[in-house]
């Protein structure tokens, strides 16, 4: 297994400097100056404390307090620090990644080793550390607080940057891994690497942005940098649908509320006021919209004084009253006019004058119909979603139609603030610290094959001998790579949405997606094409910047 990077340069019989030449570099004053410029030596027991000075803390989340075997709550004072890791940290498992100074950050936790602990990471993964599972160099459970470092590789570009090999050896032949997710887990106490007790594996439950029903667990042999098969099938839980903002119970409650609202709306359908009778008296009275919404909704509503009000005379309608009270009385309203000690009561019916009635009727029907439709639609959406959820939970199948953008859009419109993600959760019982992944070995691509030649966009006639090419299938988010010993012959699935990049002379080069698509078409006819690469700009110093450059 060849390492991708960091091959030493072998120089035969290089001219060694003479003693005189060496002495030119002897300068004790410079040493003292350098020493003065260095910060005081680290003394901290908890590495996250002394790293904090030189690191960018980009996430800070506390987690967990759970009851496992002991039944007692465990309080974690653990800050989660995503940080660069100093080189002096023990048990570094991976070589430097292919891009200088760009490392996928770790999350760092402090664990009290005598207690059961569940750590929830920033990416919502869970690390379950049984009590007394961490062993010191004498293979006895450590009693000193342990520092646990976790690095989730859940994005193909992170995988590339991490230095993890995207291939494995089978009978001496390099095979491609179809890698979707991996993680690195390590621990130490006071800078001494720890081990895991054989009978107390650490559980890692981690999420993949990918739906699948099974996978194979591999562990990285960090000496040969080769993935070693560990287990055939891992436990894959199947909550295909996630509702970060609303639980199943809340969803059911929401449906019940909508049911009630719908029933109420149908039961209490507001009545359109009748058209006023021309020969009856009418009074224009402003009403409180909160108290009488059923009539306040209509503009220019009038109260028609029925013929049963024998004591009503037209002059009463033109007097200035101290107060007018309105009270609903079955299908009519009781109007009370008060002035000093005088008080008159009449029954009245809300009506619309002929000129307003036709307009109001049309608007009313439209609004009511829309209200009913809206509630029906909301209910139907919830019924559909609930059906999906219930079926998924009942059948324990990983399948979903939640990626249906129409449904997602509809949900947004209805302000349910729901986000659906197609997610699989893998569980790996880790019996040794190191680098693990759950993946499927690379399947031979069914597609058109072509021989690729690589050139830079500013020198398209000069072909580069690139050592390794990285591909990402953007649909299933899996990365694989191929290397030049295979004579630049790459099998390309022309139906895939592929992204390609490589590293040449320590510089990241990227094939423009549009060029790549053009290549695919040409490959179908000629089988031999030039792939034009674009060089990454200087100053890409973080995984996020590189992802941005790659557009993925």
């Amino acid at each position: 297994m060849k390492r991708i990077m960091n091959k030493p340069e072998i120089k035969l019989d290089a001219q060694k400097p003479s003693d005189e030449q060496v002495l030119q570099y002897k300068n004790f004053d410079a040493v003292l100056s350098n020493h003065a410029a260095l910060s005081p030596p680290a003394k901290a027991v908890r590495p996250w404390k002394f790293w904090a000075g030189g690191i960018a803390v980009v996430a800070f989340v506390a987690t967990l307090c759970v009851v496992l075997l002991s039944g007692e709550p465990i309080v974690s004072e653990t800050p989660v620090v995503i940080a660069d890791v100093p080189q002096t940290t023990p048990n570094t498992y991976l070589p430097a990644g292919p891009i200088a100074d760009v490392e996928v950050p770790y999350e760092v936790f402090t664990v009290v080793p005598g207690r059961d602990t569940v750590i929830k990471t920033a990416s919502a993964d869970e690390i379950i550390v049984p009590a007394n599972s961490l062993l010191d160099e004498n293979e006895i459970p450590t009693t000193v607080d342990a520092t646990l470092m976790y690095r989730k590789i859940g994005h193909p570009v992170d995988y590339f940057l991490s230095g993890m090999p995207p291939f494995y050896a089978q009978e001496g032949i390099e095979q491609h891994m179809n890698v979707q997710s991996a993680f690195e887990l390590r621990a130490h106490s006071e800078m001494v690497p720890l081990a895991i007790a054989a009978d107390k594996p650490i559980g890692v439950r981690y999420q993949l942005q990918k739906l699948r029903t099974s996978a194979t667990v591999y562990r990285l042999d960090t000496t040969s940098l080769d993935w070693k098969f560990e287990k055939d099938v891992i436990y894959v839980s199947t909550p295909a649908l996630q509702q970060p903002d609303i639980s199943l119970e809340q969803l059911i409650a929401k449906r019940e509320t909508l049911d009630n609202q719908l029933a109420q709306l149908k039961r209490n359908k507001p009545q359109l006021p009748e058209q006023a009778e021309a020969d009856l008296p009418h009074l224009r009275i402003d009403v409180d919209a909160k108290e009488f919404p059923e009539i306040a909704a209509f503009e220019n509503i009038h109260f028609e004084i029925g013929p049963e009000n024998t004591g009503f005379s037209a002059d009463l309608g033109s007097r200035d009253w101290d107060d007018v009270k309105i009270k609903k009385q079955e299908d009519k309203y009781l109007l009370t006019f008060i002035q000093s000690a005088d008080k008159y009561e009449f029954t009245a019916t809300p009506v619309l004058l002929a000129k307003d009635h036709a307009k109001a009727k049309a608007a009313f029907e439209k609004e009511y119909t829309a209200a009913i439709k809206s509630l029906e639609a909301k209910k139907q959406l919830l019924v559909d979603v609930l059906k999906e959820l219930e079926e998924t939970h009942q059948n324990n199948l990983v399948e979903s139609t939640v990626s249906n953008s129409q449904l997602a859009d509809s949900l947004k419109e209805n302000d349910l603030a729901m986000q659906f993600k197609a997610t699989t959760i893998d569980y790996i019982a880790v019996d040794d610290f190191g680098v693990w992944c759950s993946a499927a070995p690379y399947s031979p691509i069914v597609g058109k094959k072509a021989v690729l030649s690589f050139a830079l966009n500013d020198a398209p006639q000069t072909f580069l001998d690139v050592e390794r090419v990285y591909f990402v299938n953007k649909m299933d988010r899996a990365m694989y790579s191929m290397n030049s010993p295979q004579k630049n012959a790459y099998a390309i699935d022309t139906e895939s949405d592929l992204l390609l990049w490589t590293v040449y002379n320590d510089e990241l080069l990227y094939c423009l997606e549009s060029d790549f698509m053009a290549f695919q078409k040409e490959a179908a006819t000629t089988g031999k094409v030039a792939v034009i690469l674009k060089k990454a700009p200087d100053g890409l110093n973080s995984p996020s910047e590189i992802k941005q450059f790659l557009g993925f």
Partner: protein
Amino acid sequence: MQTAEQNMKSVSDSAYHYNDEKLALEAQQIKAAQKDPKAFAPLYEAYFMRIYRYVWQRVTDDAIAGDITSQVFAKALQKLPDYKYQGVPLGAWLFRVAQNELNQLFRSRKNKRSIAVDTEQLGHLFVADEEETSYTFSDNQKQDLIEAIRELKPAEIELIELRFFEQRSFKEIGDILELTENNAKVKTFRVVKKLRGLLLDE
């Protein structure tokens, strides 16, 4: 044909003999330097050349080796308050500081790891009998040599470098790599055997 073990002996041990008096003096100097960095001057004087050559062997660039060497001594001064004298020359510890500094450099990819192969020294391993005093690699053999060295693991390369290209004694190699002298010898012998096997199809 000599054995690999016999040929290993043809590399002379370098001076790494500290008598009790010299060790006691060094212990005093360390103690003084732990209180005052300026008192580190005699130790710097004693070890500068050896550390520089150790670094140069791994970067093969005079100026870069100079910078790194300066940095190694600055780091050593920084860590010196925690240093505990254990009856071993300070040099072994300084080499480990240098080793860490180099590893850090290579990991950050600011510089590429180099291996300066001294074919004359390595040639001792391939002399057919005691009558021969030297062995000259042909161009093809040199290419094979490069390939063979590439097959070695980093720890194996380190042993070859320390023993054959830097002419260090097994005692010193053991101190640098934190092995016993005998273990350093056994490990080196195994690497030599492996290298010969790769080159001569033994």
